[in-house]
């Protein structure tokens, strides 16, 4: 029997019982639609996290104090980073392109009646190239010349919030009552999907923050970038050695934690990998339940059409032909369900994206896999009823009423 004939026969049989066919595929439809939507959600958040991470810069490395935590409580403060560490890294490291401390202060930036709740970041000029920021207008402050100067460079969101279309260069921002002169603006980097805004920044020399704002010599984080993609490991090692050397460090534990960008991406995406696994299991369960629905309907179909099977056998159908006929039918049902499910899932993803503004990415792989799983479901759950049909005795089947 040719495949076209088989498809025709099974489609006819399914169309004869439209309502029943529809109900029996419903499980598959809902299962697949849910899977597509969930995976789109997972993939969307994964992508946006990745983008966010990448927006940190290229080949970025972050050094942080190694807090000793016991049961979530900070037991003892560890070694603190200092300005001298930054200088030592800058002078001695060979795998490092740029290095910048990072000290932040929270507060409100005020200009006249406008204010902006933006964190003030104390950095050095290298920070721009580490994080891929570019100057749009004006200039960046100079580490040596503008040491402790009351100047700042602001992102586009701050420009919007405080200056509403006016040119901010040369104007003064008040931050915790301290006036900071705007000497430059940054090109827009856009915002990540989770609300964090790369343009909502005020940069000022770190010395300014240390001396004028927080009266501390400690540095919270050091940002650096390695000279190229393959050097992250070496750069990390080198930074750690420089920091240990300065302190004559002999303890077995590291005084600081050094993360490369890849490590951070991995850390975050491993969560979404977990999520993907959970989703896959749920998908499997829903398709299994859907498959049982199909198996049930195929049994009914085989019993109902016993006489037809008997006749087909009497006029020359082999067991194999009958098997194929019913297998085709169950595969057709489940593929139809899969197709409708995919369409619904894609539509639902689009709706969530436009209505709720969540990042949704319908991955081609999830569509292909859904379809393949539906096919497998059709074969797996159709097999037993189809085999039952193919083993009927033609005499008995013909006599069946």
């Amino acid at each position, binding site marked *: *029997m040719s495949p076209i004939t088989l498809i025709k026969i099974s489609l006819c049989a399914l169309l004869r019982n439209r309502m029943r066919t529809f109900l029996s595929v419903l499980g598959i439809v809902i299962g697949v639609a849910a899977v597509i939507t969930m995976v789109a959600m997972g993939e969307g958040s994964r992508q946006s996290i990745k983008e966010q991470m990448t927006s940190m810069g290229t080949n970025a490395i972050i050094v942080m104090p190694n807090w000793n935590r016991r049961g979530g409580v900070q037991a003892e403060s560890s070694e603190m980073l200092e300005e001298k560490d930054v200088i030592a890294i800058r002078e001695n490291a060979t795998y490092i392109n740029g290095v910048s401390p990072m000290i932040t202060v929270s507060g409100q930036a005020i200009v006249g009646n406008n204010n902006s709740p933006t964190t003030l970041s104390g950095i050095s000029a290298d920070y721009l190239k580490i994080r891929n920021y570019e100057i749009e207008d004006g200039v960046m402050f100079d580490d040596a010349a503008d040491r402790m100067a009351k100047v700042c460079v602001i992102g586009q969101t701050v420009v919007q919030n405080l200056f509403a279309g006016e040119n901010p260069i040369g104007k003064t921002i008040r931050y915790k009552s301290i006036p900071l002169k705007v000497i430059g603006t940054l090109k827009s980097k856009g915002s990540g999907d989770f609300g964090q805004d790369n343009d909502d920044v005020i940069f000022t020399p770190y010395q300014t923050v240390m001396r004028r704002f927080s009266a501390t010599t400690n540095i919270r984080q050091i940002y650096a970038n390695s000279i190229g993609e393959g050097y992250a490991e070496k750069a990390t090692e080198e930074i750690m050695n420089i920091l240990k050397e300065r302190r004559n460090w002999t303890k077995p534990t590291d005084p600081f934690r050094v993360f490369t960008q890849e490590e951070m991406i991995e850390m975050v995406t491993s969560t979404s990998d977990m999520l993907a696994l959970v989703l896959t299991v749920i998908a499997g369960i829903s398709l299994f339940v859907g498959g049982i629905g199909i198996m049930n309907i195929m049994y009914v179909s085989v019993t109902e059409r016993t006489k037809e099977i008997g006749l087909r056998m009497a006029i*020359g*159908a082999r067991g194999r032909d009958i098997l194929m006929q019913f297998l085709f039918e169950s595969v057709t049902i489940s593929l139809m369900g899969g197709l409708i499910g995919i369409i619904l899932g894609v539509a639902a993803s689009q709706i969530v994206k436009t209505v709720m503004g969540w990042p949704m990415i319908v991955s081609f792989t999830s569509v292909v896999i859904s379809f393949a799983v539906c096919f497998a479901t059709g074969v797996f759950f159709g097999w037993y009823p189809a085999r039952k049909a193919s083993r009927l005795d033609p005499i008995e089947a*013909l006599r069946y009423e």
Partner: protein
Amino acid sequence: MTDKLPILSIESLRRDFKMGDQVVHALRGVSFDIYPGEFVTIMGTSGSGKSTMLNILGCMDKPTAGHYILDGEHTEKLSRDSLARIRGQKIGFVFQNYNLLSRTTAIENVELPLLYNSKVSSAERRRRALTALEMVGLADRMNHLPSQLSGGQQQRVAIARALVNDPVIILADEATGNLDTRTSYEIMMIFQELHRQGKTIAFVTHEPDIATFSERTITLRDGLLKKDEAHEMQDAKAAFDALPPPETYD
């Protein structure tokens, strides 16, 4: 007739059924030959073994012992699949209750046996089905569903289906059993016409009246061959014309 080789030959055919502890001997050693072009009736009351005989002749069942040679093939040795092939290519079945697929048009019903023959293309299938429908005079009803046809017309579609694969023998199982006398005679006219065209027909019935329209009657009783005699073939057309007009039935 004896100068030809038999198209169908059975020899000491036995068929036992196990019913719990008991063994029922449905056929206890039956032998006969059917020659090409013969129109044979197999008669018997219920329990005579004629249904069992028909199932074996139709290659849907295998004998417990004995031989059955159809068109040169020893069917008792064949596998399930080979039997299916024989049913599809050498046998044309006509059933008492027509066994047409509902919600499938007349022509599609007729095409059905050819679906299981991969050598026949779909165009060829359609052509042969149409020819078969023409032979039973129903070409104008080809797109009707069985539910839109009368019992006699449905049986004619079933006969067309039995003809479409050009079988070596047509097996009819009480083919007139569900029909009134007039329609029965009409159907017998078609069988006689097929006989005139040289088809070999084996017609199973329990009605002696119907047997007279064939040229030879094999009578079974209690699983044994009781009688096998050639006889004059009554003309179905004449019998039909002799019937009172249908109005008088009401």
